[in-house]
Each structure stands twice: as structure tokens, then as C-alpha cells.
């Protein structure tokens, strides 16, 4: 076809298209194969390069109208496709692509002309629309199988590349054949709109996937969807290139020998990509790692500047610990912390009454802070952790108090939250406590990281100071909100477990003590009950639905009891949900006829007549 087109040109005289100019043919011959207009343009461009021709009108041989018609693209009225048209286009493009990329490209070209849009723009539009229809895109993993030899090339270049790009890289691809696409192909996980995995892109025993080898499987994270060239309408999703540093979640090796070679190569190339054997593949674990990696990246980005300085300018030690962000400022308002705070406040009030003292801001911060710190310290066992937890409580209440009071008194809307606390050794040997806060100066303003430095005086009071010199080789202990929240959660669970144990005299004494204390917090309990009642009322419908879901599984329970795994049960459910309608109707007819024949022969089905229809 290419040779044919080279020798002949098919020109279509269409009533709505641009007509061929009458003198084109003659001028074409005289100009050695160029139209007069193209020759004029070439001269004009050449002239402009050398300069000095600006005042000469070299376009005088042709009319201005014709010049503009040829040189400038006429603005064409474009029509954006409506939703229905878009859906139809997606279906048609998918159908055409299933026969081959060339047919898909041809379809795009044709449609672009019809709609009066640029071909590449339309291609991108279709791809984006198709991507938007992917169910659970954040969980979709892609799998690219290849040989160890090819994997080596991929690791060296750092990219999965299509054939065009590989040729540009100087690779000889004459040996390649059989793949239905020039682009990089993947198998992919597919989910339905209920979040159930209906098709796994990775099958350990698959033999008919088309890949030349299954030595290595690149497992790509959902970030690959960000590629502009990502096309999920092809039979197998494709991209033109993919950065393995950014998109590769893990690499699977066929056996330990291949794994060893792979790991060596990754180490040589200093590529930090996880690896595992194919038989160890665990989708959930990989997705969790991807999620953790994203949170770490967010944290790293947020920690990139501290007190206005780039992280590289600050001693790594003081900023190198894992902290949360206001998004996962997790324990601030949990009931356990609220309860500790309320109890501490009650104790403070009793203290004031007992000592006939007035309430002051500083006094409140100090007393309640210490009380909270004491409660946090009880959660831990190591001396360093106890000390850090106690100081954490003090600093934490202080920032909470400021935030709350500012908010209540409308002085300002500054928010400051303690995220983490680190104990390090100062250059002079003293213990330094580095408190990492997240603060927003005004409601709606972005959060920034702020560090404050404290030491303890002889009386055990916290003294704030300027950023000191830190010993790099010194010991470092860290306490974060998450550490405390985990311990509080653990304690709640232990309490529940212990409450089921048979009562002993010592537990009875404990109970009496607990009852006394809980009498003081009765108001809190009543408030909590009100809230719970509201939640129950609102969630009643949900509970009914959930109960029905829980009550139903005679099917599921029976399968679970028989030893089927939850994944198998999920697979069965998705098979039922995704059954093809034609197959269902056909089989319904067949089984219905079979039943009728049985009945007509005098057979009865356990005395019950089943209604298939």
C-alpha cells in the first residue's frame, strides 16, 4: 500500500473539500515537484533567515487569499462530542483496535476529520475518557512479561519503551515478531463497580498470554495511568513508554536463579525496586506498599523545608523521624485522649479549689499538660519512652490550648499541632528535645513544618531555646502521635479482654476504684450516649442493609465452612454478577426444557415444582 501511494497519489474531488488549484499540475512540473506556493514559501523562509529581504514582497505572484488559504490553517468549526457520541466512539475505537492498531489509528483519523479536530487531540480525548471509566483506578496493577535479557535492557534504560523508542535507542529489533502492538503491552487487573476483582492480570500458570518469556514480570503501579499515551481500549492496555523508577511497584522473577540475577543487576544499577518470586505474588501486599510509599513521599515533600530552610541545610538527625500531617493528625480528637483531657481538667479544678487559687492560663497549661503527660507515660515501659511521652503530653496540651483558646475567643485562627518529638544529644552533652509542629497561621492557609527546641532545667521545667548544635553520632529516640494512639488503642483492647476474666478480689478492688473515678466523668458519659444515640438513629438503615448482607450467606457460610477461601468466594460471586446475559438466557432455556422433559416423562423433582422463569 505504501509503494502504491508513493507512485500514485489518490486525490479525491469532494464537494465539501478544498479543490485542487487549476495551475498546480503545470507549475508542479516546472518547479521540480513543488507547487508554486510551496516554492514561494521556501524562498520567503530562506530570505528571512539571511535577512535583508523584508521590504521585498515576494508573494506578489499569488493572491493574498490563496496564500492564506495554503499557509495558514483555516479555523475549522469544531464540535465537541456529546456524552452519547463519546460512548459510541469509545466502543467503536475499542472494536477497531481489537483488529489491530492500524485500524484503531484509521478510525481516529476518520473521526477527527468528521469532527474537525486534530487527530492527536482526539486520540488523547478518547484515551482520557476511557481512563475515566476504569473502576478503582487506584488499585489497578499492570503486568508486563519479558525475558531476563530484555529486562536487563529495560533496567539499563530505566524505561519500558515501545519499538519506535527502542529503535531510536539503537536497538536492533528485526528478531521481534508476533506482538500485536508496537507499544508496550500489559495485562491488567479489572474490578467491577462493587470493587470486586473480576479479572486478574497476573496468573502464575498462564501459558497463552502472548509474551515470549515469563522469566520476569514487571508489576506497574496505578501511576502508569498518568502516562498520556496510556490506552486501555486496546485488547491489552498499552503505553509508549513507562518510567520504571516512578511506576514499577515490584518485579517478579520466575525462580530463585532468575531472582538472584535480577537482584544483582538492580544492585549494580542502584535501582531501589522491590523484587519477589512469582509464586510469592500478593496483590494486597503490593497495593499496601504502594500506599505507604505515597504517604512517605507526601511526608518527605512536606518535610522538605523546615523553618524556611531546605532539609539539606539542617542536620539530618533532627528531621529524620517519621511524623504525621494534619491529614492524619490522628489522635487529637479520639475519645481516649478527650477522656484523659477531661479527667485532667477535673483534677485541675479540684486542685484550685483545694488550694484556693485562681485559674490562670499558664497554670492550666502546666497542670493539665503534666497530667496528660503522666497518662501518656503510663502507656510505655522504657525510661526514654516514658520521658518523651511525658514531655509530649505537656507540649501537646500547650499547643492544643492555644489553638482552642484562639478559636474560642476569635483572636485568630492559627492552628498548631504537635506531630512528633525527638530526643537527641546536644554538642555539649545535654539532652535536647526537638518538637516538630505543623502550623497554619490562618484558617485556610497551607500548613508548614516548624521545629522548636527544648531542654529540661533542674526543676524539670521545659525551657525553649535556639536551634542548638546536635551530636550526629548521639542517640536519638522518637515519639509520635501514632505511637501514643497505638498504645491507647492497645490499652482499650486489653481492658475489654480483661473485663471478661473471672473476678478476683484484687480485680474487685480495682473495679470499685474505677467506679469511683467513672462517677466523676458521668457528664462525659451522658454526652457520649447522646452522640451514640444520634449515630444509631442515622445509621439504622445502614445497619438493616448490613444485617441482611450478614444474614444471607447460607451460600457463603457453607462455602467457608467447607474450606473455601474468601478469595474463591469473591471469585464465585463475581462470576455470578458478571455472567453474560446471552449465555444466561440460553442456558435457562436449555435447563428449562430439560426439566420439562423430565416432568413430561413422569419425573418429579423432590415433590417440588421449580419455577425457572
Amino acid at each position: 500500500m505504501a509503494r502504491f501511494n508513493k507512485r500514485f497519489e489518490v486525490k479525491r474531488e469532494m464537494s465539501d473539500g478544498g479543490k485542487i488549484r487549476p495551475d498546480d499540475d503545470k507549475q508542479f512540473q516546472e518547479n521540480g515537484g513543488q507547487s508554486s506556493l510551496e516554492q514561494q514559501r521556501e524562498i520567503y523562509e530562506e530570505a528571512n533567515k539571511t535577512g535583508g529581504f523584508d521590504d521585498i514582497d515576494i508573494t506578489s505572484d499569488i493572491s493574498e487569499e490563496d496564500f492564506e488559504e495554503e499557509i495558514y490553517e483555516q479555523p475549522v468549526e469544531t464540535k465537541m462530542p456529546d456524552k452519547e457520541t463519546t460512548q459510541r466512539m469509545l466502543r467503536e475505537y475499542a472494536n477497531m483496535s481489537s483488529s489491530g492498531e492500524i485500524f484503531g489509528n484509521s478510525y481516529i483519523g476518520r473521526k477527527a476529520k468528521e469532527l474537525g479536530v486534530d487527530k492527536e487531540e482526539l486520540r488523547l480525548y478518547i484515551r482520557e475518557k476511557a481512563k475515566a471509566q476504569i473502576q478503582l483506578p487506584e488499585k489497578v496493577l499492570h503486568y508486563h512479561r519479558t525475558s531476563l535479557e530484555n529486562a536487563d535492557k529495560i533496567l539499563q534504560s530505566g524505561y519500558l519503551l515501545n519499538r519506535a523508542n527502542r529503535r531510536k535507542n539503537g536497538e536492533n529489533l528485526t528478531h521481534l515478531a508476533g506482538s500485536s502492538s508496537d507499544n508496550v503491552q500489559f495485562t491488567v487487573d479489572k474490578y467491577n463497580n462493587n470493587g470486586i476483582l473480576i479479572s486478574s492480570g497476573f496468573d502464575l500458570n498462564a501459558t497463552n498470554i502472548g509474551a515470549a518469556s515469563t522469566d520476569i514480570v514487571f508489576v506497574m503501579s496505578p501511576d502508569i495511568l498518568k502516562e498520556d499515551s496510556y490506552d486501555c481500549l486496546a485488547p491489552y492496555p498499552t503505553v509508549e513508554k513507562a518510567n520504571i523508577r516512578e511506576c514499577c511497584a515490584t518485579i517478579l522473577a520466575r525462580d530463585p536463579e532468575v531472582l538472584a540475577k535480577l537482584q544483582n543487576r538492580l544492585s549494580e544499577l542502584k535501582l531501589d525496586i522491590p523484587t519477589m518470586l512469582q509464586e510469592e505474588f500478593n496483590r494486597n501486599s503490593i497495593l499496601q506498599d504502594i500506599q505507604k510509599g505515597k504517604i512517605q513521599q507526601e511526608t518527605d515533600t512536606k518535610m522538605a523545608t523546615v523553618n524556611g530552610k531546605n532539609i539539606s541545610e539542617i542536620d539530618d538527625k533532627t528531621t529524620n523521624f517519621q511524623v504525621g500531617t494534619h491529614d492524619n493528625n490522628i489522635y487529637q480528637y479520639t475519645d481516649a485522649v478527650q477522656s484523659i483531657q477531661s479527667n485532667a481538667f477535673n483534677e485541675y479544678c479540684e486542685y484550685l479549689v483545694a488550694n484556693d487559687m485562681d485559674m490562670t492560663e499558664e497554670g492550666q497549661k502546666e497542670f493539665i499538660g503534666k497530667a496528660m503527660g503522666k497518662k501518656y507515660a503510663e502507656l510505655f515501659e522504657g525510661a526514654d519512652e516514658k520521658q518523651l511521652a511525658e514531655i509530649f503530653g505537656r507540649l501537646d496540651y500547650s499547643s492544643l490550648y492555644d489553638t482552642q483558646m484562639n478559636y474560642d475567643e476569635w483572636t485568630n485562627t492559627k492552628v498548631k499541632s504537635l506531630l512528633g518529638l525527638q530526643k537527641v544529644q546536644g554538642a555539649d552533652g545535654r539532652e535536647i528535645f526537638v518538637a516538630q509542629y505543623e502550623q497554619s497561621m490562618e484558617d485556610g492557609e497551607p500548613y508548614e513544618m516548624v521545629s522548636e527546641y527544648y531542654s529540661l532545667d533542674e526543676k524539670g521545667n521545659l525551657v525553649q531555646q535556639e536551634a542548638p548544635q546536635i551530636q550526629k553520632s548521639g542517640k536519638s529516640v522518637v515519639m509520635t502521635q501514632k505511637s501514643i494512639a497505638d498504645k491507647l488503642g492497645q490499652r482499650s483492647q486489653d481492658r475489654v479482654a480483661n473485663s471478661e476474666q473471672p473476678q478476683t478480689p484484687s480485680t474487685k478492688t480495682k473495679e470499685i476504684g474505677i467506679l469511683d473515678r467513672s462517677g466523676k466523668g458521668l457528664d462525659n458519659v451522658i454526652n457520649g450516649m447522646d452522640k451514640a444515640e444520634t449515630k444509631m438513629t442515622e445509621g439504622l438503615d445502614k445497619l438493616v442493609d448490613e444485617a441482611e448482607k450478614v444474614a444471607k450467606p447460607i451460600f457463603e457460610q457453607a462455602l467457608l465452612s467447607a474450606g473455601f477461601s474468601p478469595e474463591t468466594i469473591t471469585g464465585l460471586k463475581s462470576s455470578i454478577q458478571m455472567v453474560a446475559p446471552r449465555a444466561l438466557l440460553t442456558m435457562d432455556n436449555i435447563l428449562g426444557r430439560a426439566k420439562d422433559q423430565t416432568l413430561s416423562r413422569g419425573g418429579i423433582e423432590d415433590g417440588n415444582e421449580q419455577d425457572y422463569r
Partner: protein
Amino acid sequence: MEMNRITDRNACAYKEIYEILKIFPQELVSQIPQETINFFNNNMNKNYEYDISVDTFDGQTMLEETKAILTILFRDYWATPVQREKILNYENSARDKLEEETRMKYNPDNLFKKKNSQDYVEKHIEETAMVEYKESIFKKIINKILNIFKFR
């Protein structure tokens, strides 16, 4: 030929569902009439291999026909009333859609429309014209030289 192919697939599906029922718990299988199970046994393709066990069965690797049979069994014997109704609704709307498609396909008016579009395409092809480039003088000389050498 087509009928044979379909029959073969159904026979394989019966084998698959039979094997699946073999590993299913008794409390589920006992709800299916014996005649139905006998039907699968009598009509299945005994040479078709479908080896599964409780550990290896993933619930998804099966023929479409098998999924359909599974759905029917689930609908009739294992589903809650709500689930059964949903499946029946799905079947009814699928049936309606199929009937609509059949009606559209064999509607004489649509056949006529199709013919018209075919005419349009044929007419359109007739309107294309081919213009052959004349070879450049340089090419002509080369070809002449080549022709001379041919006869030597």
C-alpha cells in the same frame, strides 16, 4: 457445524459444573434436585479435563456457559429472595434488550436504510480519481540506461 460447536461447549460446561458441585459442600448440593445433577452427568463431555479442588478453585476460571449454570443454580436454590429478584430482573431486561435487537436487525425498514448507505459508499468510491505522477526527466534517463543494459 455451529450447532456442534455449541453442543460441545455445553457439554464441557456440564462437566465443569459437575466437578464444581463435587467439591461444593453437601448442604448446598443437597438442595439441587437429583434430576438436574443427573442431567449434567448424562450430558457432559467426560473427556473434557477440568481438575479442581477446594484449594485450587478460584471461582472464576470457567466457561461462560458454566457461569450461567452457576447463576441459575444460585438463583433457584441458594439465593435470598432479594438476590433472586435481582437476577430475575436482570434476565428480564436482558431478554427485552435481545428482543429489541432482533427486531432492529430484521426490520425491513432498516434493511432499506442499509442499502442506501451501501449505495452512498459505492458512489463515493466512483468519485475518486487517480492522478499518476509523470516521472521526472532524471528518472526517465535512468530507466532508459537500465533498459539499454538489459538488452546487452
